[in-house]
């Protein structure tokens, strides 16, 4: 299996820490979070399997191309717009959350506009790249941050402040009834594979070992979920953990590096997660941008050899994102992103329907 697929999955899973997902998971800590996560894990793996199987049928062709070839415009246009919005919002949630994290932990005196702009300059530039370059960029960033990640996770798990008794307490709730909100939040962490709808263009080789790939994705998932869920519980304590705004970052802030130039581990985490979520936003927006490009190309914006539609698209992305960042409060962000995650099953259904349509169109093609 193509290594870039794992980067996309890995990136998405790591980036959930800079989305509201940790606190959404922990809200269910006194309810059925643990069984739900197990359920979500298996569902995520199952969906990943179908994604892989579907795209493996069409190596080197992206989703918009398939829709164009096998379905009618009445299906294609609304679905593409819907997907573009879904992906744009996925990136935007990460962006808003990252901005809030930064203004809380790193640069409290800075204006929120400045923080958002400093992120968006690079992201906007990254979105406009060729899809292949985005993949290469993801690879480089993953390679740059993996050493930091290793160090930090070892540091976290070996920290003396990590209270395993609290973790055991949380395990007492294993036999509760699953919660829908936790389930969808878990599903979102597996959505990295859905980026294939654009990046499949560069995945030209057929591969049959889906089960192996899904197993690796599942292992990633287990590690991410365990880290996201149990680390805040172990470091913050179980009782009030569902009330924390930034459970994960607060947890990381309790780890100290005694001999380091940087004493508080949270700043190394910041470095790590800023880089990861930068790329996550870039990838999500890039997918959204590519989907929109497959629909719109405004001829009026043709200037000499350049068409300015891409720049306009990204400008709209940036403007909306800045507006949302400034407008949303922390509470609203959590509420609305919970709505967003809860709507993921709709996405999966739409996806399944179109997948079925494309497949039928493809199977009937030789007869026509």
């Amino acid at each position, binding site marked *: 299996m193509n290594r870039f697929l794992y980067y996309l999955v890995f990136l998405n899973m790591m980036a959930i820490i800079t989305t509201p997902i940790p606190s959404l998971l922990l809200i269910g800590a006194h309810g059925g979070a643990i069984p739900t996560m197990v359920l979500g894990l298996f569902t995520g793996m199952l969906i990943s399997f179908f994604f892989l199987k579907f795209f493996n049928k069409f190596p080197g062709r992206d989703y918009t191309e398939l829709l164009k070839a096998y379905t009618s415009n009445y299906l294609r246009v609304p679905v593409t717009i819907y997907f573009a919005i879904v992906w744009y919002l996925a990136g935007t949630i990460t962006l808003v959350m990252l901005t809030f994290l930064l203004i809380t932990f790193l*640069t409290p005196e*800075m204006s929120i506009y400045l923080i958002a702009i400093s992120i968006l300059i*690079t992201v906007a530039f*990254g979105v406009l790249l060729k899809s292949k370059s985005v993949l*290469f960029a993801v690879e*480089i960033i993953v390679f740059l941050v993996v050493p930091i990640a290793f160090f930090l996770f070892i540091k976290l798990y070996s920290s003396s402040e990590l209270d395993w008794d609290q973790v055991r307490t949380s395990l007492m709730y294993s036999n509760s009834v699953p919660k829908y909100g936790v389930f969808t939040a878990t599903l979102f962490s597996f959505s990295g594979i859905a980026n294939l709808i654009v990046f499949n263009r560069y995945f030209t080789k057929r591969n049959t070992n889906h089960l192996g790939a899904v197993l690796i994705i599942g292992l990633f998932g287990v590690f991410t979920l365990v880290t996201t869920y149990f680390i805040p519980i172990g470091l913050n304590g179980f009782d009030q953990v569902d009330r924390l705004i930034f459970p994960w970052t607060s947890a990381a802030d309790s780890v100290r590096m005694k001999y380091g130039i*940087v004493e*508080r581990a949270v*700043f190394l985490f910041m470095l790590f997660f800023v*880089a990861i979520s930068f790329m996550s936003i870039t990838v999500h927006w890039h997918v959204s941008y590519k989907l929109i490009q497959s629909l719109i190309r405004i001829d009026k914006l043709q200037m000499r050899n350049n068409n300015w539609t891409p720049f306009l698209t990204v400008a709209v992305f940036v403007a909306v994102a800045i507006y949302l960042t400034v407008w949303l409060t922390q509470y609203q962000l959590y509420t609305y992103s919970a709505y967003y995650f809860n709507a993921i099953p709709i996405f999966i259904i739409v996806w399944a329907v179109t997948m079925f349509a494309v497949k039928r169109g493809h199977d009937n093609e030789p007869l026509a």
Partner: protein
Amino acid sequence: MPDSTPVFPPYMKSLQDALGSSSDVVQLPLAINKAEAQLLFVKTVVEGSIMQDTIIKPFYEIADTEKFAEYLNGMPNHLQIPDSEEVLKKLVQGFVLIYCNENYLLLEIRKLKNTVPLQTVLESTIHGPQSAFSEDLETNIGIIRQHYHQPDLFIETMELKDLSSRAVALAYDRKKVNTQVLRRLKEQLRQIDEPLIQSAGDLAIRLTPRKLNIFPVSLLTERPDRTIYNITGGKIIVIVDGSPFVIMAPVLFFDFMVSMEENYHTFFISLFNTILGWTGLMICLLLPSFYIAFASYSPEVLRTELTLSIAGSRIGVPYPTFIEVLIMLLFVELLTEASIRLPKSINATATTVGGLILGTASVEAAIASNILIITIAAVAIANFVIPINELSFAIRICRILLIAFTSLFGLIGLISGFLFIIIHLVNIDSYGQPYLRIPWRDKSSEKEVGSG
């Protein structure tokens, strides 16, 4: 005058007229018994002794027009006559035009200059070969051939269309080269529309369609061993006449971070050197920006003692950190430039005055903090660890970009700017090949390689 004086052929006359009455244009009639021949050449570009040995002497020995013409036709360096424009060009390049037996013939008797391999200057190593390329095209091709005994080594020569009609040669391994890149490179070479190209560096810039580049997309080297190493890696070498550097394409960003020294040491020593090189690159790129970020924006990131000592050393400095950094960086850049331009004998003075006196004095005058002086010194040293000079120039510019980002946006700006540079590097390509990517050994790409 005897009547055997050869008649001056009209074609040659017209050529001579076209060349004008330059003092180095020589028209030489040869005549003995019944045999006669006419030579036309430009004295300053023709090797006199070879002409004496291979044309004039044999003429008088053979003393027969027809036999002499046969003899000339048998020489390996002869050329059939192209059109007049071309002939004039050949004449000024060091060809001799011979009229003999009612036939015209061009013989290449070029005066070779600068054929001595130079010492390595820019990329010196301790254990590697010490001699670099020469400034002569053919000598350089010879050097490559002598170091790479493979029948697959393919040399193509062509001529640029500029005023100097510079000769250029492509060298590559026919089995290993990427044919797509080769086609693209040749096309670029043909498309060059530049009035004057004088060196490899010049050509390397013109070879890229993008004009506003920071990072070089081809690599210049003076080392034959690096050249051979890269030919075996499937790269294409462009050799330019009159330049001791050759151009290599396509390149990866990582190629710029390889010092040939690493091939001549044991594993751990070269690993250490590699890590040192990358650390140097990072220090050079990031340290001034980190200083700004930590001193002005996020002092709480560092441990308290360090924050206090930075703040302490900044007591009395009247302006924000980024101005402080820019001033000191400007001095260091000036110093670097000055030490490149100055003759070697005065060089030491400049560094002493600049480095020692300026540094101490600026701290005492509270223009810059002590810690900044250390930072800037580290940056200046680290700059020279980068193995390829072109990259270290590019890094110097990126450093300023990062300083701008950090001054505006603080620590986040630094991270953002760093990612910006990475994304830029990923975005650019070198002759269609991605510039920055992890160079995995890809087995499938080895199969794609076809013949030239």
